């Protein structure tokens, strides 16, 4: 069977293309046509594969002949569909032109397809003496294949003419891609099915026809879905890089190996064998080094992503709302090269309103509108204007979406989500050079998304003008933040458990936090810890992290995955040097169990009623934000919580605090303090432990402190 397997293997490929197009483009004529092309070519590949089988011994040759003819008809149908595609892509031609073309093309196509399948005009016979298929071509065979070729050429020509008439760069790019794929794909099919043969002809390469068909369908699908401009700079740089790599490393290495082979002829074959291996390893290492340095040099003058990321991370939020917005505008406009920027923030009263628009592009989006819904549903949070114009996803709301782009004088929208709710929108204007945003810009926007999230969060939740005018702004702000953070928790209220906590910040400013999220009537997610830093920035980071953890919790079901995401967020989006030391846990009171990952919390104590003692169970922990990928270091643990037991955890602020004699409060004092009060409620235990702590330090507190206490109630006898 050999390469005939390619015909069968290509069928799933067509199926994938079919469903991809249907999912996003079934509402447009071009989308439906592309899906039809994929379906026709899938049937064609199936027919071609079956022809090989049915021409073998034990099968009726007439069946093979019918399928061979049907595959010719399917190719013809495909080309008619390709022509229809050219009429409808990227937008349908005016109705009268469309009708005129359809009146000619469709009847001709149907008649030809019928003729190819049920008469001797296309193929007279087909047979396979051994592994190669032979066929006897009919009197109009050439007409059919040149008709196919002509339709493909006409389609490409039509797309070319439409391309010249289009003003949109992205549409021109889409049409150019489609035309190129149609020409190449159709040529591959026709050449491999015997374009240049007549009469009784072998079909030595017919197995590649399905590959050509896949190329054609894949290319048209790609053009249909394409909505961002190519980044020619990156493409050119990559090609140049590979060419330079070939010239500087590949070619010299090849010459060395060739010389070694010559030497080997007069000495030993081991010389070229060992030598070639050494050259290969050397060239690979050298190539890697060369590639890396060469690319850095090539990209240094134009790439802005990393620098912008770093600069946005350095925006000092403590300077106040107006200054923050001005700085963000300056950084973005300088890096990207635009003039217009608009920032919209959710006002918590049903609207997203423009809070910043230095050049006047303003808009208000109603939260309950379809447009707001669309911004929240956008998978990547970024919409380029080219996408709004071309992507079938936006077909239903294209008009209001493009109006929004116009009102905001924008070419790109970055929607910032908190959970699933849009809390802000950054509308970036057109470039001063007139160049449109490309795939590189899209990736760059994705990279700075985290930084924009932080800024939007600040603008929405913290930078209220009324607060910013207070004299002791920082402290007032932090107090508000801490209160807000502490109030928004799902308290553990359950017959089996009595939980409480105390959190106090040094100087009223802090990064310690504790959060409980109720997952079901018996299950809670718990996170407690310390975000490094002090003052306003620590409070900010704490609040942002708390929000992000809740967001991740909605989408990430895997415990390690969740903590890894939090780690990546801290590392990539919070200011350099920020880390989180704490614990993440799932409390399952139905199973009397606590599953946890220690991420640097200094102590977790379990009181065992059987032994009347505390056991340290925190194990080894790694802080979050130090390494890029924390997952290899994470060790989930399980703790059984029998009735009468108690769980206590504290941040380093309690344990490391010293009294006037320089003694640390430490774990032992904490243990004793809790143990003495085990007969009391958890609230009384934590409050009492805090009293002991403050008495020890003479009411001095140098660091933020958080203490969590949970008692597992004794079961009542039934």
């Amino acid at each position, binding site marked *: 069977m050999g390469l005939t397997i390619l015909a069968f293997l290509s069928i799933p490929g067509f199926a994938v293309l079919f469903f991809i197009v249907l999912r996003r483009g079934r509402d447009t004529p071009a989308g439906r046509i592309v899906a039809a092309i994929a379906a026709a070519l899938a049937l064609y590949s199936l027919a071609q594969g079956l022809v090989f089988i049915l021409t073998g011994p034990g099968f009726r040759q007439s069946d093979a002949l019918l399928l061979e003819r049907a595959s010719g008809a399917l190719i013809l149908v495909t080309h008619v569909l390709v022509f229809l595609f050219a009429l409808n892509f990227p937008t349908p031609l005016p109705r009268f032109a469309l009708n005129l073309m359809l009146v000619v093309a469709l009847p001709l196509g149907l008649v030809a397809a019928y003729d190819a399948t049920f008469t001797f005009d296309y193929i007279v016979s087909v047979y396979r003496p051994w592994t190669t298929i032979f066929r006897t071509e009919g009197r109009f065979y050439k007409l059919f294949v040149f008709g196919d070729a002509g339709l493909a050429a006409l389609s490409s020509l039509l797309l070319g003419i439409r391309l010249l008439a289009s003003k949109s760069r992205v549409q021109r790019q889409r049409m150019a891609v489609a035309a190129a794929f149609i020409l190449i794909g159709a040529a591959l099919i026709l050449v491999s099915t015997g374009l240049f043969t007549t009469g009784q002809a072998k079909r030595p390469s017919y197995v590649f026809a399905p590959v050509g068909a896949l190329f054609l369908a894949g290319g048209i699908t790609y053009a249909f879905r394409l909505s961002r401009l190519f980044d020619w700079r990156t493409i050119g740089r990559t090609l140049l890089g590979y060419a330079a790599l070939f010239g500087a490393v590949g070619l010299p290495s090849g010459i060395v190996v060739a010389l070694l082979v010559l030497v080997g002829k007069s000495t030993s074959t081991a010389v070229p064998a060992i030598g070639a291996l050494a050259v290969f390893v050397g060239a690979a290492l050298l190539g890697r080094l060369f590639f890396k340095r060469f690319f850095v040099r090539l990209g240094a003058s134009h790439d802005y992503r990393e620098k912008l990321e770093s600069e946005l991370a350095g925006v000092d939020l403590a300077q106040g709302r107006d200054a923050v917005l001005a700085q963000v505008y300056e950084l973005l406009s300088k890096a990207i090269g635009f003039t217009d920027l608009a920032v919209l923030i959710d006002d918590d009263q049903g609207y997203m309103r423009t809070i910043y628009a230095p050049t006047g592009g303003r808009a208000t989006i109603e939260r309950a509108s379809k447009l707001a819904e669309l911004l929240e549903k956008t998978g990547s949070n970024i919409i380029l204007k080219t996408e709004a114009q071309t992507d079938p996803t936006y077909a239903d709301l294209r008009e209001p979406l493009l109006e929004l782009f116009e009102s905001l004088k924008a070419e790109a929208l970055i929607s910032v989500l908190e959970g699933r709710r849009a809390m802000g929108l950054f509308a970036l204007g057109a470039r001063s050079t007139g160049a449109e945003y490309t795939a590189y810009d899209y990736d760059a926007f994705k990279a700075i998304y985290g930084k924009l999230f932080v800024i939007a969060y600040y603008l929405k939740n913290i930078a209220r003008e009324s607060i910013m005018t207070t004299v002791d702004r920082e402290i007032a702000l932090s107090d508000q933040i801490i209160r807000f953070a502490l109030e928004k928790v799902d308290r553990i209220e359950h017959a089996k458990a009595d939980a409480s906590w105390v959190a106090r910040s040094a100087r009223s400013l802090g990064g310690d936090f504790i959060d409980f999220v109720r997952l079901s009537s018996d299950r809670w997610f718990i996170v407690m810890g*310390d975000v490094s830093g002090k003052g306003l920035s620590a409070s900010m980071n704490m609040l942002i992290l708390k929000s992000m953890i809740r967001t991740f919790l909605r989408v990430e079901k895997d415990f390690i995955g969740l903590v890894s995401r939090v780690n990546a967020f801290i590392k990539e989006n919070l200011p350099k040097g920020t880390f989180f030391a704490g614990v993440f846990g799932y409390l399952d009171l139905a199973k009397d169990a606590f599953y946890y990952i220690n991420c640097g919390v200094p102590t977790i104590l379990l009181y065992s009623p059987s032994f009347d003692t505390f056991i340290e169970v925190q194990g080894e922990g790694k802080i979050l934000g130090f390494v890029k990928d924390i997952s290899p270091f994470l060790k989930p643990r399980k703790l059984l919580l029998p009735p009468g037991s108690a769980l206590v955890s504290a941040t380093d602020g309690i344990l490391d605090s010293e009294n006037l004699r320089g003694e640390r409060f430490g774990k032992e004092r904490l243990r004793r303090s809790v143990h003495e009060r085990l007969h009391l409620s958890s609230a009384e235990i934590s409050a009492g432990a805090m009293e002991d702590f403050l008495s020890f330090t003479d009411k001095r507190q140098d*660091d933020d402190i958080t203490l969590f206490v949970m008692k597992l109630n004794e079961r009542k006898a039934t």
Partner: protein
Amino acid sequence: MTQLDIIVRNEHHRLLLSVSGPINSYTFTDFQEKVYKAIAQMDTAVDMEHVTALSSAGIGVIMTAMEDAETTGHGFAIVNPSEIVRLAIESTGFGDRFPVVKTLKQA
């Protein structure tokens, strides 16, 4: 001791910051400013033998200094840390990744 003292010396084309006192909520900004400024200029070593406390903010400063050193290509080392500093660094779980040396010669 509640006050943080930092003495900066230029020794053989390297800045040596001798730190004594606690690095906590009240004092870490001074430590932060001096370390960041030093690492931006040249190789930097921070003598932490007489540091009596190191809070999370202080650890954050050291982490940033490590990253800045990598970016600028300058060397960065923590020299002869006190027991408190050593414990604080180890509490991160990544103690082995901090550039800790016993003597200035090793820095």
